[in-house]
């Protein structure tokens, strides 16, 4: 006989399939409703249930059962409203009555493709394992034969150079009465070079970030430069720059990015006659470590009035940059042209360099740039880099780890004797587990001249919830519960730009001290130990062999 209510419930999901399961405690909950109001994905709802309730209220136990209608908080089993584990509910709960638990058994990816659309998200590669960078140790410790330096007392120069550096043989120098002078007769072009702090803030656009977040980063960077004397630079990402900043003296702390959509460049070009300072550099984005082969993507819901104005587009339309520059015909010709055009636009006073995603073909790009005297650097973004929006498959499966990629590129430059001429910038997963200075130092000693951070600074300066268990990672939706990657004033007013700026300053000051604590015991202080691979070891023989460093266990 057919039952009154169906028992099989086929094609309905159990909570066991979900990545996060909400633990809600009836006895603690006072039904204030804050959690359900704050949930950015509406994964929990207030609802009512009919239940058998046993009560005993007198001085002597007198249990009485009754059926009652009670209010509960319930997790929905709709995969489109899956709990992302962000924990905003726990944050607002006055009674610690609710929290999400990660469910290792989840089958989330099996179902997250409704409507034939692959899962899209923000964040970075979901891989909580220890990265290669975190396995690298600094093992060449100066002792008695070579006294260590004192990180607190000695003078350190934790600085790097951004820009094409002439080989010593080509310096336009003449000897005059025992002194070297820059020869005026030789019309040698000396490329622009900036001395910067070796950790820079990587490209995150106005638009991808909320106004207070971008403003907070920018204020922090300006403070670091102007007050702390720490020359930290920040890349704008594709999407332009607030017009007031373009015309301000603070522009010199910013690297302007041009990418395949050229968003924001109309505004930049129009501001050029009014610029009082040159930017720190120009980054031409050809690829991104988190989503190699994809262009930038700003979802329509984030294209509000200010963003539309800066980018020169209508409001509320998806802004997807093409996967490649449409003018690109070949690396020899069009990349060189683009580098030259950008150099020329700024009177050859600004370093111009490309950024690519980590790839097996990085060396081919590198060798091409090595032959181009106007190429100021090469930035390589590894697979652990972050993004505001991409397909999960791109983030999790596409790309190349940064460690071996940067190492082989550096060794290639060494073979050509150009290791000091073309700086390499490494990015992608720097500080993934919080070890910012150690990761940066490891990359520098593998051969990078500088490193870029993105996700790390969002986590550390603005408390981004994201992690490698796919926590939150809804940057693409414009519903960032922290107000970092949203254009919704109701959300971004949660973020105080001054606090972000303060944190940025703290983070870089701490990193500066920690870098000294790494370099001092290794006896290095005057110049950055770029390529000082004898200082490194790793606990895996195959990795040691690949990176050409020693194995230690």
């Amino acid at each position, binding site marked *: 006989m057919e039952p009154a209510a169906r028992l099989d419930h086929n094609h309905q999901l159990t909570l066991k399939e979900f990545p996060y399961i909400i633990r809600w405690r009836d006895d603690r909950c006072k039904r204030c409703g804050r959690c359900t109001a704050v949930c950015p994905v509406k994964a929990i709802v207030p609802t009512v249930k009919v239940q058998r309730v046993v009560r005993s209220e007198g001085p002597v136990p007198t249990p009485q059962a009754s059926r009652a209608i009670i209010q509960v908080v319930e997790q929905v089993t709709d995969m489109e409203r899956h709990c992302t584990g962000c924990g905003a509910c726990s944050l607002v709960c006055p009674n610690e009555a609710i929290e999400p638990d990660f469910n290792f058994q989840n089958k989330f990816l099996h179902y997250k493709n409704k409507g034939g659309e692959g899962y899209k998200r923000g964040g970075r590669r979901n891989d909580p394992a220890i990265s290669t960078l975190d396995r690298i140790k600094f093992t060449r410790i100066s002792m008695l034969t070579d006294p260590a330096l004192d990180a607190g007392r000695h003078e350190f120069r934790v600085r790097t150079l951004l820009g094409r550096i002439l080989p010593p043989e080509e310096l336009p120098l003449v000897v005059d009465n025992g002194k*070297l002078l820059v020869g005026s007769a030789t019309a040698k072009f000396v490329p622009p*070079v900036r*001395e910067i702090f070796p950790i820079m803030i990587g490209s995150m656009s106005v638009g991808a970030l909320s106004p207070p977040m971008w403003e907070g980063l920018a204020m922090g960077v300006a403070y670091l430069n102007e007050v702390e004397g720490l020359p930290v630079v920040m890349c704008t990402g594709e999407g332009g720059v607030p017009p007031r900043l373009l015309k301000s003296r603070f522009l010199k702390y910013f690297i302007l990015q041009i990418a395949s959509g050229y968003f924001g460049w109309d505004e930049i070009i129009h501001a050029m006659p009014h610029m009082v300072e040159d930017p720190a550099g120009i980054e031409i984005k050809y690829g991104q470590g988190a989503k190699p082969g994809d262009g930038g993507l700003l979802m329509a819901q984030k294209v509000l009035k200010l963003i539309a104005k800066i980018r020169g587009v209508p409001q509320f339309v998806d802004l997807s940059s093409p996967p490649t520059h449409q003018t690109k015909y070949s690396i020899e010709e069009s990349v060189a042209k683009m580098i030259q055009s950008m150099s020329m636009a700024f009177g050859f006073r600004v370093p111009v360099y490309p950024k690519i995603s980590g790839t097996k073909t990085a060396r081919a790009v590198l060798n091409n740039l090595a032959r181009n005297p106007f190429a100021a650097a090469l930035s390589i973004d590894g697979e652990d880099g972050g993004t505001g929006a991409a397909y999960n498959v791109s983030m999790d499966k596409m790309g190349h780890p940064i460690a071996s990629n940067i190492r082989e590129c550096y060794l290639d430059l060494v073979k050509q004797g150009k290791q000091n001429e073309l700086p390499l910038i490494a990015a992608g997963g720097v500080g993934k587990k919080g070890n910012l200075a150690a990761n940066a130092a490891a990359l520098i000693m593998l051969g990078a001249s500088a490193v870029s951070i993105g996700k790390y600074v969002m986590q550390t300066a603005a408390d981004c919830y994201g992690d490698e268990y796919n926590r939150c990672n809804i940057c693409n939706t414009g519903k960032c519960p922290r107000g970092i990657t949203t254009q919704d004033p109701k959300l971004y007013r949660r973020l105080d730009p001054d606090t972000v700026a303060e944190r940025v300053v703290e983070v870089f000051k701490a990193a500066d001290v920690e870098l000294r604590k790494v370099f001092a015991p290794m006896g290095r202080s*005057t110049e950055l*130990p770029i*390529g000082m691979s004898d200082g490194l070891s790793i606990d895996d023989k195959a990795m040691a062999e690949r990176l050409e460093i020693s194995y230690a266990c």
Partner: protein
Amino acid sequence: MCRLAAVTSQEYLSPMEVILALETMKEGHDGSGLGITMKDLGGEFEDFKKYPILSGICSKKGVYTLDEHMDKLGFKLLHVWAPKVKQMKGVKARDYYFARVYDYPDSYKYRPQKDKEDLLMTTRLSLRSLGERDESLFAFSFYPDVITLKEVGDPLQLGEFFGLDKDLVKARVVLGQGRQNTNYAIYLYACHPFFIQGFCTMTNGENTAFVPIREFLMSRGFPGYVGYNSDSEVFTHILHYTARQLGFPVTYYKDVITPLKGSEIERRDDRAALKLIRQSLRPLCIDGPNVVIGFTPDGACFMVHDAKKLRPGAVGGVNGKYALMSEECGLDSAVPKRDKSSDIFPMKYDMVIVTPQAKEVRLWNQLHGWTTTTSSH
């Protein structure tokens, strides 16, 4: 930490003077080796000033390799000096120690000095590679008016072993290093002083920046930048690269290995050049702890330090004889009758240059770029 002793003089002096100075600093070396390089030679070499001298060691088998190779290249043997070796306890004698004077191959007789220097260097390197595997042949220097001796053992014993106390070999410039073996195996090619095309240096202390410097030098495409059995060999090659290859005045050696800070550079007249040098030669910056003592092809001697850890070093003497030592007691041994109050203890910004035949001592200050000249009487 190794001990270093150098004496430069108007009169020819015996290398024993340097060995005796090393002996006074004995606490600092463990007798694991002695290296001596002499320049501006007297005695039996005085008549051969223009001809290159090959210094080295070989086995019985190695002599044949040597003769055959030099014949093949067209070098003509003019004169041979071999120390009269006295067997000593604790010194394992090798078959044949030599300093051989050659005449250039005919095709090189009228070639410019630079070509000749390149030929001498490539010849030395080819000899090195012929004998390196079976240690049948070591070639330390091949250059006019320069002799190098190296062996494992206690310096004083080695002086006697080589018969330097009796021999008439003399020179105006003598550099000696008493080795304190640390992290490298005792190997003759790791023994200071190091020599390349007229430039010679010896160093004490480890070089923490060794690997990036080695990579930079080796990628210059210059065949002489090889070896590096010791991390100190790069100091010689940096000097050679700076002065000979790039043509910088010798004081810029200091600016290359210990560049000034940005704010300090502004105080120098040549700031524009210094800024470019600091960028382009960034990988050659050292972090110490090192004191470098050496000579340049013109016969000037110098002493320079790293900028932070400051290994000790002292320069003192009288007009016509100056000593550059890693310790003051070495000065007392080499030039006892001097005005001690005018001894120079160079600090982080200093480079001491003693001009040929010890006529003048110049103290060059990196911060200001000026020179203070002194000459004692």
